[in-house]
């Protein structure tokens, strides 16, 4: 059992190495290609400017964010944590008693109240 576990994740580890190696080798190949002149590499200051609309770029991009994103992020965290509890429950649900169903119903209902509150307070609307 444990041996099987390590075998499976061992293969996934190998796949992870390959998955990183493939794009890395393509980037390396592109770098080599610039060395031997297959692709050009002669940057100029104008070329290295970021593209905005065609005229000279003014200022950087590392600016302030709209706080809207923050609200969505909080809602996301709430529901994603909920899911952490829901998945083990769902996996074994087919063999569980009535108590488990009611308990999870209560758990989801509490979160639903929060969601309804956010909707009511117009936090789910982008423009307001």
């Amino acid at each position: 059992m444990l041996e099987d576990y390590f075998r499976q994740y061992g293969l996934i580890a190998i796949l992870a190495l390959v998955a990183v190696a493939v794009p890395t080798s393509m980037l390396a190949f592109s770098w080599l290609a610039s060395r031997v002149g297959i692709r050009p590499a002669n940057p100029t200051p104008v070329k290295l400017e970021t593209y905005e609309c065609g005229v000279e770029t003014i200022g950087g991009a590392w600016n302030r964010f709209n706080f809207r994103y923050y609200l969505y992020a909080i809602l996301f965290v709430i529901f994603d944590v909920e899911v952490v509890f829901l998945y083990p429950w769902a996996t074994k649900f087919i063999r569980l008693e009535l108590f488990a169903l009611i308990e999870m119903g209560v758990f989801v209902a509490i979160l639903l109240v929060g969601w309804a509150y956010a909707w009511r307070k117009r936090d789910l609307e982008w423009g307001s």
Partner: protein
Amino acid sequence: MNCQLAPDNILYGNGLYRLLYDAAGTLLPCWLAYLAAGLVIIFILVNGVLLGAAVITWTERRLLGRFQNRVGPNRWGPFGLLQPIADLFKLLTKEDLTPAGADRIVFALVPIAMVAPLILMTAVIPFAQNTALASLNVGVLYLLAISSVTTIAIFMAGWSSNNRYAMFGAARAVAVLISYEVPVVLSLLGVVMVAGSMSLGQVVEAQALPFLLVQPLAFFVFLAGMSAELNRTPFDVAEAESEIIAGYHTEYSGIKFALIQAAEFGGVVVVSAIVATLFLGGWSGPLSEYLGWLWFLLKTGVVVFLFIWIRATYPRLRIDQIMAFSWKFLLPLSLINLLAVSLEVFFLRGETGQLTATDLGIMTGINLVLAVAAIAFFGNLIRRRVKFETRRPAQNVVPGVSTIEVS
């Protein structure tokens, strides 16, 4: 030599994997046979994703051409089939620029961070009978976890470019991605519940009836959510060409751009494979048990076509519509699905804690009616809400003030 796999391993059953393993086992010691079989599967997976991405670029452009009453690429090779190769060589010979103000290391890491999770996601997908790289007992969770890495990669791209439009694109993409993560994750709970396992192999085996029929709501939510996670057209505000140049990959050129594009199209392949596995019955099909890969490919192809069809049909949504679609439409739908499926499973399961094909048939009947009713109800609700949405006119705009807010 007769090598035994652990009996609780799904790869133990008859299938391509077993064939490979036994063939290697006649020549090599057992642990080496295991490694060799694994390496062959890894080879298939990596090439499947990369070649799949290449084929999709061609298919998508040809089909979009047909949808839009034009021809599409048809010059290079028969039916333009060699177009992806031409594209690759063109991008390889283009200059690869890094903007002067960019965060160079993060900028260079982005293509890797985009392609790698894509290939990693394929590890648990059973692409032929009893054949996958690993039959993890947390397969669905693994998929969801690895697929969220893309979010970080997209934000890395936007942030490191030091380009305003890239930043806008990345911020929008992250907002959309995390919003659609919630209904997607909740919709898969129904699948896990009926299958009684998170292992993808067992999800496939539980599908006496395809889950597309048993849980149409979950399928709808998952397809819409994945469409958004792939940044495809109805939800492509992250790279809306007519608004913010190319979004988060504005500053990318040459091979880095090629890799990002490959990740995008490869994403379509991988997600289609996941949809085919979870909702269309994966490798199960008639005829020989060794033809599983053929049914799997066919089902994946159907889902890919569906994605391209959706892209050709719908116009782009505004960001507020996208958010409303996720939080006010897909989220309640996925919760209704969760409630309905849990009640059905609870009352239909037998003494043994098993669902028979008849039970699945009953669930299909109930859930189809429920799906139509729920979509009609919430669709009506959200349409009214969006229609009355008034955009606040821009006030107090002082020219020359450089506080740019991302919207």
